């Protein structure tokens, strides 16, 4: 879990903010309480929606907060890719391909050894069962060959690597083996690899003309920044009909406590909205929270989270 170099580039693609580097995702979550929303498919279990993978989608508020803190910068990813690939030198390309190939070979080796291990384990189990059965009684010897067949088939040919081992072939810490010749590996000895990020071959640092200004944020940004500065983890609130869900700790381990809705200081609130929010919040064991930036005498200081006041509403009659 290497800490990424700062500022972390946030990819701006088609109006959305994405993170593609797992190191950046883990770092921001751990150090800056920025969780985002995982929106990609997990390649190891692609047919489900419970656990999702990279890329991580950031709300504009989150992206802005990180840029204001100086932790990240917004990068025009389309431009970076186009310019970067065009500018790629022959030498870099070859080096990159060699690197990928060695990763692929490594992955292949890991997989085959793991398969071998599983096979051995399965065979051992069968042996044990056989021995057990033999000691008990030799009444039903038929199912055994079938079983063996089944187990022999079971190591599937899907890309299976050691998921939870530390030496991830795709992660950053694997270094290409030192003495690798440039001749292509014989067919079938290396896996194809689709890397998550584009560096390498592209440079990690972005040039000034690839950077974008601060993200546009909705008027609820002061509330977002305020709650974040108080240590809350925030996520989009659509599921509970609010703007932000505020978690007291990492959402991996804690339930959310507040349904946050932002309002302008002089905004007239519909009483029904407060009642509906209060009842809903209390019904799902959360507080309904309204907040906004207080108007100061100095006038407009939008985005100043110091002047935000928040009110929590609980439905007492239930």
């Amino acid at each position, binding site marked *: *879990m290497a800490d990424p170099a700062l500022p972390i580039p946030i990819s701006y693609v088609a109006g959305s903010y994405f993170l593609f580097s797992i190191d950046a995702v883990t770092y921001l979550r751990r150090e800056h309480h920025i969780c985002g929303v995982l929106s990609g498919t997990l390649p190891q279990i692609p047919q489900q929606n419970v656990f999702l993978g990279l890329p991580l989608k950031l709300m504009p508020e989150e992206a802005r907060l990180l840029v204001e803190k100086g932790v990240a910068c917004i990068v025009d990813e389309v431009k970076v890719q186009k310019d970067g690939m065009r500018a790629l030198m022959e030498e870099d390309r070859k080096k990159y391909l060699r690197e990928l190939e060695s990763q692929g070979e490594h992955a292949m080796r890991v997989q085959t050894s793991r398969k071998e291990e599983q096979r051995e384990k399965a065979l051992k189990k069968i042996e044990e069962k056989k021995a057990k059965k033999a000691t008990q009684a030799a009444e039903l010897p038929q199912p055994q060959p079938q079983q063996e067949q089944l187990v022999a088939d079971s190591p599937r040919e899907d890309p299976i690597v050691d998921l939870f081992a530390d030496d991830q072939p*795709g992660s950053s810490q694997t270094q290409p083996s030192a003495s690798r010749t440039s001749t292509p590996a014989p067919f079938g000895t290396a896996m194809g690899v689709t890397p998550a990020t584009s560096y390498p071959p592209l440079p990690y640092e972005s040039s000034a003309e690839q950077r974008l200004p601060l993200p546009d944020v909705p008027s609820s940004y002061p509330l977002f920044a305020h709650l974040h500065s108080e240590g809350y983890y925030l996520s989009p609130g659509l599921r509970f009909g609010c703007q932000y869900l505020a978690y007291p700790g990492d959402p991996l381990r804690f339930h959310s406590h507040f349904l946050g809705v932002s309002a302008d200081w002089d905004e007239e609130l519909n009483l029904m909205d407060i009642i509906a929010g209060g009842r809903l919040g209390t019904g799902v064991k959360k507080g309904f929270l309204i907040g906004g930036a207080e108007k100061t005498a100095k006038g407009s200081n939008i985005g100043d989270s110091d002047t935000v006041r928040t009110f929590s509403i609980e439905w007492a009659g239930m």
Partner: protein
Amino acid sequence: MADTDEAAIHQPSPDSGAHIETDLSDETQDFRMLNSISFLTDGSQSSLPKRGEKDFEPNPTLFQADILSASRQAMHNALSYPRLHHPKHHVIGIYAPNGPTPPRSAQTLDTISEESQPKKPAGTGLGVPADSCVYVSTPKGQLFKTIGQADRWNRIWLLPEEALYLLERGSLDIRWPCSEVGDGGEDETQDSGIPMSLQAAYAAFMGRSGLTSERFSVYTGLRRLGYTITRAPGWYDEEEGADGSESEQAPLVRQQGAGLAGIFGQFLQWLYKPEPTTALGPVAGLGFHRSYDDIYRKLSFIPWYDPAAVPSQSRTTPPYRIVFHIYKPSTPFKKSAPPPPDFKIAVVNSRLHTTFPTLSQLGSLLESTPLDPPTEKMSRQLYMRLRHGYRNVILAVVDEGVVSYLRIADSAFGKEKIYQEVMRGNFGLKGDRRKKGCIAQPVLTMIPEKATRVCLPRNKKAQISTE
């Protein structure tokens, strides 16, 4: 009534036995739960982990810190899992930044024979959508049964969302073409050998030909659940949202005014200018009434909306347009001749559209869908019929990657003559009660029906199929 409602809220959260009803994807799951899935050994495993125990709030104990860091480590490991392609299943696609083009061999032939021929716009004449931007020469695997479109050189062309989805799930290796890479030459269809990273693929495909991140979230979310999903005509903002299927419908008797909005206006008119008859005498009129049916028929003078009537062909406004057709995994799907879709979806970005659609937006959206009346099976179930409606559409509301689905159906309360149902005895009323005539239900027919039902689709937690 209120008491039972509140009691329901107060019930303790369902314990482990009743977890089937809670949607696990609704909240962040502890990635340590992934450890319990034995997908590494058995691909047919379909059970997903149970909801993990979460704590109420952080406390400064080492115990809690350890669990949290274990969770994060599990998440880190799960997310850093590489996308690998075994040589046996390695499917290679090539990015074509300028849309579908004939292969190089065919191109050179063309230029030899007709050199002065002006360059044709991309995609025409190849039989594939012009928005396609990745082709696969040797498609392998189940997924291509429902994804992509073949040209006459047997290459499968993929739309941006299809290519991105396949790459994201680790089923496709997309390569940069030579023309986009350094000094690799000008050929647009030649494989440069450099694989596209996930990051590069997002930059290349997201935002291309109307693919927003909201639409992509809906696309992948449903694909992951096993649905087949294709673009609908409403995808393209500049085009007319209504498709040709409307004109095929047999013209039904237009009982009432036009459309949902029209009937609302009629109702308002009726409110302001009440029928003079009500002031002059009994609402049911004078004279002999030999059956209750007669009376009820006379009583139902409030105009009502018939969703089965011919739509007024009003223009749909983006984003309230059908952009996806959805097919259940059980529906036999043929790429060349797609069957009528099981569901129609419009995608709404909740950040841009913060209010519920207006009646006219919703009305024209519903009118752009084909008539889907209640089936024969529901002929005896009044509430099923009302729930199902005559036209329906699913609104996918997306808030920064979080998707909620709402099913909107055009219910026809006016078409359900309760008094007739009662006469047929469908309500299970005892015969003697009917004779006495103590029937309260017919009041329902008096409700002016502009009602549009909104309910969550039941299919959201559909089967989780593993490959």
